């Protein structure tokens, strides 16, 4: 659990983070979203003390972070940044092994951990371990950056626009991979982004920031249905609200019995994609399949009811 209590940061008389308090539960993903200059990156960097708070305190699992030397604190917290920040003069394996080496792990243990992480991120260890960062594609570099952040098995992972440098297709894939890995290893993640879609699709809770202040900290459905301020509402965009609500749901939760014709929709697809497919193909209903087996159908009416403002 990460508790931020009345955090404030003042640079040369300018308040960049203004009295922010919030609590992130263990195993959850919190996304911090805001425009540039909103103070979201500064807030993130105060958690691992790359930025020293002007006032306020941070507790991790009840322990005050200012009581630990900064470099020791950082070795316990994963850190991944935009453009990955890989060390260009070190191989992929040496990059991933950075924190374990700082912690004084044995060589054999580091090597085993590096291979394990490469596997986890879908990079064949024999092929990628000894490559240099410049020999990788952008998507591969980004994965190595996250693998490096997770190397010492931290309970907390801080990510600053980790997908910012990726093109949209690789980006969507990287987001899915991150969710899958997070579900597997249960790390608490704090992720900064300027992209509301990314914040909604990744976060259990979303913190919306503007001009250094925290405007709202709530689950995605709440943020969409009950935006706390006009600024949050503008960030959501009134035209997109129903579709953002749909995007939060999976088809498998809306399945009903009955016949339907045409190509099937996967049960794990999100409801927005299913609605788009029904509109495009002019169908009222479509069959749903899970793992290739038919499991029922999804109807336009069921989808539409999910797109309404919740009461």
């Amino acid at each position, binding site marked *: 659990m990460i508790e931020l209590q009345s955090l404030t940061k003042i640079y040369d008389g300018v308040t960049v983070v203004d009295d922010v308090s919030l609590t992130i539960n263990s195993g959850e993903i919190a996304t911090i979203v805001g425009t540039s200059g909103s103070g979201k990156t500064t807030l993130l960097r105060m958690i*691992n003390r*790359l930025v020293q708070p002007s006032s306020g305190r941070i507790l991790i699992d009840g322990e005050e972070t200012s009581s630990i030397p900064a*470099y*020791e*604190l*950082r*070795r*316990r917290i994963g*850190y991944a*940044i*935009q*453009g*990955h*920040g*890989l*060390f*260009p*003069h070190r191989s992929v394996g040496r990059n991933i092994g*950075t*924190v374990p080496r*700082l912690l004084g792990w044995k060589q054999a243990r580091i090597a085993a951990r590096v291979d394990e992480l490469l596997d986890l991120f879908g990079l064949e260890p024999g092929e990628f371990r000894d490559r*240099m*960062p*410049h020999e990788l594609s952008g998507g591969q570099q980004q994965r190595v950056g996250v693998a*490096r952040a997770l190397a010492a098995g931290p309970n907390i992972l*801080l990510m600053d626009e980790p997908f910012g440098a990726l093109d949209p297709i690789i980006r969507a894939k990287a987001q899915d991979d991150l969710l899958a890995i997070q579900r597997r290893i249960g790390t608490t993640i704090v992720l900064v982004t300027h992209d509301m879609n990314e914040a909604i699709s990744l976060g259990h809770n979303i913190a919306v920031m503007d001009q250094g202040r925290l405007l709202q900290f709530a689950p995605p459905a709440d943020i969409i249905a009950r935006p706390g301020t006009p600024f949050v509402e503008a960030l959501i965009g009134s035209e997109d609200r129903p579709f953002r609500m749909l995007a939060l749901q999976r088809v498998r939760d809306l399945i009903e019995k009955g016949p339907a014709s045409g190509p099937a929709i996967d049960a794990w697809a999100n409801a927005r994609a299913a609605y788009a497919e029904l509109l495009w193909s002019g169908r009222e209903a479509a069959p749903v399949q899970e793992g290739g087996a038919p499991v029922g159908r999804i109807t336009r009416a069921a989808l539409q009811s999910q797109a309404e403002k919740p009461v």
Partner: protein
Amino acid sequence: MSARPSLFSRLPDKLGVLIAALVAVGTMLPLALLRANRIVPGEALPIWQALPAFQAGILIVALLICVIASIWLRVPGLRLGGAIGGVAILLVLMGQAGGYLTPAGNDLARVSPAAGFWLLLFALSLTVTDALAKMKLRPIWRILGVLLAGVGLLLLLGSGQWDDLSVLREYQVRSAAFWREAERHLLLAFGSLSAAVLIGVPLGVACFRVPRLKSAVLNLLNIVQTVPSIAVFGLLIAPLAWIAATIPGAARIGVSGIGAAPAMVALFAYSLLPVVSNTVIGLENVPGRIRDAAFGMGMTRRQAFMAVEVPLAFPVILTGIRIVLVQNIGLATIAGLIGGGGFGVFVFQGMGQTATDLILLGALPTVILATASAVLLDAVVEISESSATRTMRA
């Protein structure tokens, strides 16, 4: 027209045409200068008078082949081979001219290379450099090339081919002095470089850390760099003489107003700017996100410096060292003027005696040393860059 790839290009090479023109002029100009003794003006002799007919023929045919190769031959490797062969033949036959022209038993007569020889050597070297640039050789091959050229030079001089030429006549009468001054020259160049690295790199790191120090130090060093070298020697005479006279033991370790001490101090002062500024620039060029990642991973300041900043800044620092070394090998010549020794001694003696050969005895080794150092260190810089900075630029 055949579709088969040809060794020859259809259009003449532009640089090749220029080289051909240089060679043509060089062939017309005198190859050798024959003088009754080392000071009097002499008789300039073209190729066909400076060499026996057969050897003159060989040289002209060889030059013709080189010209054709550099104009029409497409493969850089063959052009390189041709030009190196041309240089070798030119050098050996120049030595032959020495023996051919010197009257038997005459120790006073001097044969020296004349304008034609230098122009031909320049034209052929141009072909060599151009071919090497086009071949984009790996650094390790370039290092090997310099070593081979050195061996070639030693073979040429060791074989006695050039013993009848004036430069080596000058060498023969002062060979002990030559090696003494060579040692001194290297000591001045490398000693001042080592001192500049030992002091300049830490100073550069300090400048990088403390921005206010940086502007002060770099401005001061910039001013030092603009003071003419002779003026520096002059300015140093009084303070160093004072130190030698006042501080006990200073004179005993060689400090004095003239001699090696002021030369060393001046070379050191000139060396500082490139070393310090390249250290600062190298460190400043380490991308912020990489430094950020280093601290974010939990490196201490010292760990981030040693493991990330230094390796990434290293190629730039090395470039500064390369600049200083080449500069110092040249500048150390000036030390001859104030009794500091080095190859400059021969240059200034030669100027005093209007003996061109003696000037060459000082100037040629300086040029050869500086060129070799430049090529060697460029190769080393490239090797160090290949791993460190490629992604930084991307």
